[in-house]
């Protein structure tokens, strides 16, 4: 029997059973759509993290305390951080570290590494009669160059601000936009923070350019580290030293990254009496970790969506088993006019595969559209979702849907092919 004829038979079967075919297909459409959309979300997150880490600037090494103070443990935990400004100072010795071009300490701040364990010092910020939420970054003047930020209006904090422990502040673009109409109009204005017991009035001296992405670059407010340390004494460690949450080191040459990493590790370990209570990672290390996390996320999302695909397949099997019983007489007629069991088997398998292929194609469309629609939305959570549809996910989803059609179609088709023509014709 010619393949084309079977296809034609199947399509006319579907044409006369539109509702049932549509509902059967719906299971596959939802399954494939979910696989595509959720994998796009996973891939998007991965791409977002990658571009964010790359966007930090090149040739960077990040030094962090082994425990960064968990948000669950509260602010008291910040006292027990193991990294201090002394460590940063020792890295600034050009004779020991000729390959290091800049060192900047920070407390709080935008989450650089997709490492969500770092405490975000989130605060309410009031200005111009409005209020918004911002993340406090307490740092040093060269933060802006090391981290590759652009100042959109005004200026960044200076070493003079550090020395005077001034109450000058630089706002991220979103914070500025929330409180003031334009970046320029924010300059010179006063803002007020309510951070625990600390109630501080600050003067806006600069606004950063928008960086975008799904991080918190645009929602931060940057203070001089010294000001922060004075006003918020709890960040001092028990031995009176000034704690920091992160030291960013810029290396002159990418080729010297690993060498610098080793030297930094040795120096800080020596400072800490040989204890390695901190981590030193390069951008590549961060990328590797972040990618592992987002790959796990993608697989997890794909697996959840895959379950709905299997449920769709079971739906096909269910409908087909009913349909075989309903079409018993038809099968008997076909056998009487010359069909053998293989031809009947093929007819029913092809019907199942057509449903899944058509459902898969529509599902791909639905998934891609859903991914596009979701791209850039925050769904009220404050962090925008980035989606990225890859050809791999489309291929995998459509391939799996065909396999599901075959797998769940074979048993009903086998039942159909085994029907005894005499029995089948006797049925009314």
């Amino acid at each position, binding site marked *: *029997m*010619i393949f084309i*004829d079977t296809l034609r038979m199947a399509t*006319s079967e579907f044409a*006369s059973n539109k509702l049932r075919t549509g509902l059967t297909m719906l299971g596959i459409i939802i399954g494939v759509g979910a696989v595509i959309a959720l994998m796009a979300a996973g891939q998007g997150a991965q791409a977002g993290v990658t571009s964010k880490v790359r966007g930090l600037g090149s040739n960077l090494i990040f030094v962090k305390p082994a425990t960064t103070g968990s948000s669950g443990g509260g602010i008291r935990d910040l006292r027990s951080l193991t990294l201090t400004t002394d460590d940063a100072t020792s890295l600034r010795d050009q004779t020991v570290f000729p390959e290091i071009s800049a060192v900047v300490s920070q407390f709080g701040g935008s989450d650089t590494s997709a490492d969500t364990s770092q405490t975000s010092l989130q605060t309410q910020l009031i200005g111009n009669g409005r209020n918004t939420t911002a993340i406090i970054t307490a740092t040093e003047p060269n933060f802006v160059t090391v981290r590759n930020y652009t100042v959109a209006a005004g200026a960044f904090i200076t070493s003079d601000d550090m020395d005077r422990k001034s109450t000058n502040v630089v706002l991220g673009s979103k914070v500025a936009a929330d409180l003031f109409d334009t970046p320029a109009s924010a300059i010179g204005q006063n803002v007020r923070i309510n951070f625990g017991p600390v109630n501080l009035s600050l003067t806006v001296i600069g606004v950063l350019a928008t960086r975008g992405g799904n991080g918190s670059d645009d929602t931060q407010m940057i203070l001089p580290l010294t000001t922060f340390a004075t006003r918020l004494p709890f960040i001092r460690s028990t031995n009176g030293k000034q704690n920091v949450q992160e030291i960013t080191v810029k290396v002159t040459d990418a080729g010297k990254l690993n060498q610098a990493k080793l030297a930094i590790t040795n120096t800080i370990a020596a400072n800490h009496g040989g204890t390695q209570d901190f981590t030193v990672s390069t951008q590549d290390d961060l990328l590797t970790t972040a990618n592992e996390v987002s790959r796990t996320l993608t697989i997890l999302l794909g697996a959840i969506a895959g379950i709905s695909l299997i449920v769709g397949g079971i739906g096909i099997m269910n409908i087909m088993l009913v349909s075989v019983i309903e079409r018993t*007489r*038809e099968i*008997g*007629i*076909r*056998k*009487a*006019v*010359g*069909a*053998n*069991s*293989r*031809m009947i088997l093929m007819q029913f398998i092809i019907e199942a595969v057509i449903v899944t292929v058509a459902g898969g194609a529509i599902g791909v469309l639905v998934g891609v559209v859903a991914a596009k629609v979701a791209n850039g939305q925050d769904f009220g959570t404050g962090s925008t979702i980035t989606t990225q549809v890859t050809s791999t996910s489309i291929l995998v989803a459509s391939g799996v849907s065909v396999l599901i059609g075959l797998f769940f179609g074979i048993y009903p088709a086998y039942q159909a092919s085994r029907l005894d*023509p*005499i029995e089948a*014709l006797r049925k009314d």
Partner: protein
Amino acid sequence: MMIRLRHLSKIYRSGDVFVPALQNVDLDIDYGEFVAIVGASGSGKSTLMNIIGCLDRPTRGVYELEGHDVGRMNDIQRAKVRSRRIGFVFQSFNLLSRPSALSQVELPMIYAGMGDRRRRAAHALAEVGLSDRMHHKPSQLSGGQQQRVAIARALVTDPALILADEPTGALDTKTTGDIVGLFERLNREHGITVIFVTHEPEVAEHTRRTITLRDGRIISDVPTARSTVVQFPGTVAPAAPAAQAAGEAPA
């Protein structure tokens, strides 16, 4: 000899009870014959038809169709014989419910792998007088017209044998005459062997040989009483009344 049955038995089993449907049947039917198989219900007529039609296999004994032992064939081989050599006509027409008459008639050719199907199907429908109903669905046709579609479907693959199981059982008297006349013509003009199962004596009268079954055994096998003895196609027997009437109005 086209059909040769020797000591053929068919025994059905239901639970622990064995029900013999056919017992020790010996039968020869030659090419070009027009045979009626008659008998009360439960006499084994349909079982015999199913075995001759390769839909069923005998429990014991030999069935040879055109020299091939059907009992030794597998499902695929028997399907091939049905497809190439046998046409079926049923009491309840057994048309698919949705396709047009033309598609119904094309169906056996799909399974037989034949080409030129549209033209052949149209030709077969013309043969049974349904040229003007080719695109009608079964629901738009009268009983007699549906049976004509079924006959065209049986005819279209050029079978050597047409098996008709009570083909007029669901039709009124006039239509019965038309359908029987159609079978007579196919037998006479195309030399197709036709075997009828019927319980209507007036239908059996149109055949040339009547085989009577009772309790699974052949109790008589005689030339049909009223028929003019015509052994070969070409020497024309008197046509049945209205046999050539081409198509009746839908019921």
